[in-house]
């Protein structure tokens, strides 16, 4: 996971819960990075998981909710990095297709060492779409948050639900999106 993601997580935690929360997390958890994150560097994926689990516990919030709301705020940081074509997507649906086809493809060109999920799409009904998420990092809730962030960006309303989830023992996550 890139340092930027950790930096954003820090910012997110600091803003919503204060400096002490973040500092406690870092001070308590004995992370290989010692909490020093450089944006362009890669850090072990377990660090983000450990941080998320610890924070959820500390803040007494369900882990999925925490990750989802982080994803939501992360989106506005990622969007400026997106390729021009994606920025000019005409609507949310089009944009979501671009995540797999364009955005992450370009990301991979820029940083060879990033870990990206795999998305498949079921898009047959005008009001619904399914994004099938696959990743060993099992960050489906992050995706939910990111999608919600994207919906905000495109000024659209969506309802999100998962009919299948790796956290429930499925081999992939089905993120069901209903366009309202």
């Amino acid at each position, binding site marked *: 996971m890139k*340092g930027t993601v950790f930096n954003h997580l820090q910012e997110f935690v600091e803003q919503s819960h*204060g*400096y*002490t929360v*973040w*500092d*406690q997390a*870092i*001070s308590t958890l004995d992370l290989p990075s*010692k*909490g*020093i*994150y*450089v*944006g*362009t*560097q890669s850090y072990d994926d377990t660090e983000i998981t450990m941080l998320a689990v610890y924070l959820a516990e500390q803040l007494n919030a369900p882990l999925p909710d925490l990750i989802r709301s982080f994803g939501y705020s992360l989106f506005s940081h990622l969007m400026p990095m997106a390729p021009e074509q994606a920025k000019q997507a005409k609507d949310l649906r089009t944009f979501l297709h671009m995540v797999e086809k364009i955005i992450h493809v370009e990301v991979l060109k820029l940083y060879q060492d990033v870990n990206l999920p795999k998305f498949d799409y079921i898009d047959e009904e005008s009001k619904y779409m399914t994004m099938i998420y696959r990743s060993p990092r099992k960050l489906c809730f992050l995706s939910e948050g990111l999608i919600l962030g994207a919906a905000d960006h495109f000024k659209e309303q969506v309802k999100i639900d998962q009919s299948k989830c790796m956290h429930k023992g499925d081999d992939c996550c089905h993120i069901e999106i209903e366009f309202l």
Partner: protein
Amino acid sequence: MSQQSNEQEQLEALKHILDRERAARKEAEQKIEVFASDIYEKNQLLQEQTHQAQERQKQLEFLTGLAAETWQQASMTAILDNYLDRSRNFLQFAFATMFELKPDYQLDRVQILPAAETQLMQFEESELRTLFNHLDGFRLSMELTEQAECKLLNLEEYLDPQLGKTYRPEFQFAYIVPLYQNSHNRQTTFGLACFLFEDEANLDIGQLQTIESSRNTLILALSRKQNETNQAKQLAELEQAHQTLKQTQQQLIDSEKLASLGMLSAGVAHEINNPVGYVMSNIDTMHDYLSSLQSVLKPLNENEQLDDAACRTLMAKWQDEEGDYLLEDSQKILNSSIDGLHRIRDIVEALRSFSRMDNHELEAIDVNSTIEHALKMVKNELKYNYQVITDFQADKPIMGSDGQLQQVFINLFINAKHAMKGGGSITIKTWIDKARVKVSVKDTGTGIKEEDLKQIFTPFFTTKKQGEGTGLGLAISYSILQQHHAKIEINTQLGEGTEFLLSFFTFE
């Protein structure tokens, strides 16, 4: 938790965060440094690769350019000149020279082009000549005989040991490219290109390899050109042979021309015979007159003193012999004899200029007088039934041979006469037309048939009976007019007559 300890906690956390932030920044800066030096190295590498690519590009350009140009050159010298010039521009820092290494180990036909980057090296050509004079031609020749390949010479090792003790060359290296060799009785002359380098710094092995690669094309082109030249030489020889043949043919025609002259001479003999005849008969008459006068005047000799009777007898005799008439007629006879002799003298004069005919020297002449001379020669032929009308307006000279042109005109007049069996008139006009002197010879004869017209200048083409024409007249005339850069035109109308129109350049 108290307000204070809460603030304390916050401060503590901020301090930690700040420390981590700093650490991260340092790390990032280090990263940037590594990154920057990485970029620098990559850039270096890129530059080097670009340079190499450019070099290769230059080499390629040199090779392809040279190849293309080499095949276009017109001669071996041009190929070599072009090669030397291109190589010099390609090598930049080398003096490009060329010379032949003779079987006596001497250098010949030395050619020197200064380096393209001349400001770096200021050498007098004489210094280079000194260098070449010191070169160990023997060693070089031996080595080239063994293997005629490109060679990089360390010049100090190639100085003539007998001369080179004190001499130190301005150049350290010479790159020798053998381009051609001419063998003659097992003696070989090498044609060499020689690129001189001041020192090692100006040597680029890659460039020299390129020069070496270009050698084959050059050798091929040179040998091809040599073959071409040989062929051209053979062609020239053939042409020479052809020329000789043509000359021989011309001589043959000339001797034929003499034969037709023979025919003319009959006319000329008659022309002379005529005045000779009447001068002779005049002299006979004078002889008679003289004896009559003698018989009258004889008494004057015998008697020293004439008495009246004697006087009377003398007077009677004078009357008898028509003494007055004798004296009067004698005067006429003498005048006519003088006329006759003048005519003979004129004809001889004309003949003399005719005999100068083969003396091709052109001089400024008056075409009118040439025509008059020619007319004099044929006057006898045109005596009966022919009218000669002349109108000479041309008042500028031409460059020509009087004798040769006389022959041309005589032939035209005789041809005209032959075309007018029952008689007719010949009109001869001369006039100036811009920078030309024009001569028209027009008859009222048969005219010339179209199919004959094409052939009348062909030697031996004649429509006349044997003995009357040889068919050489116009052929010879034509070649004479060509030598005069004169044009000839024919206007003819069957049954009406023919005009020969000649056009000469005026001479001013």
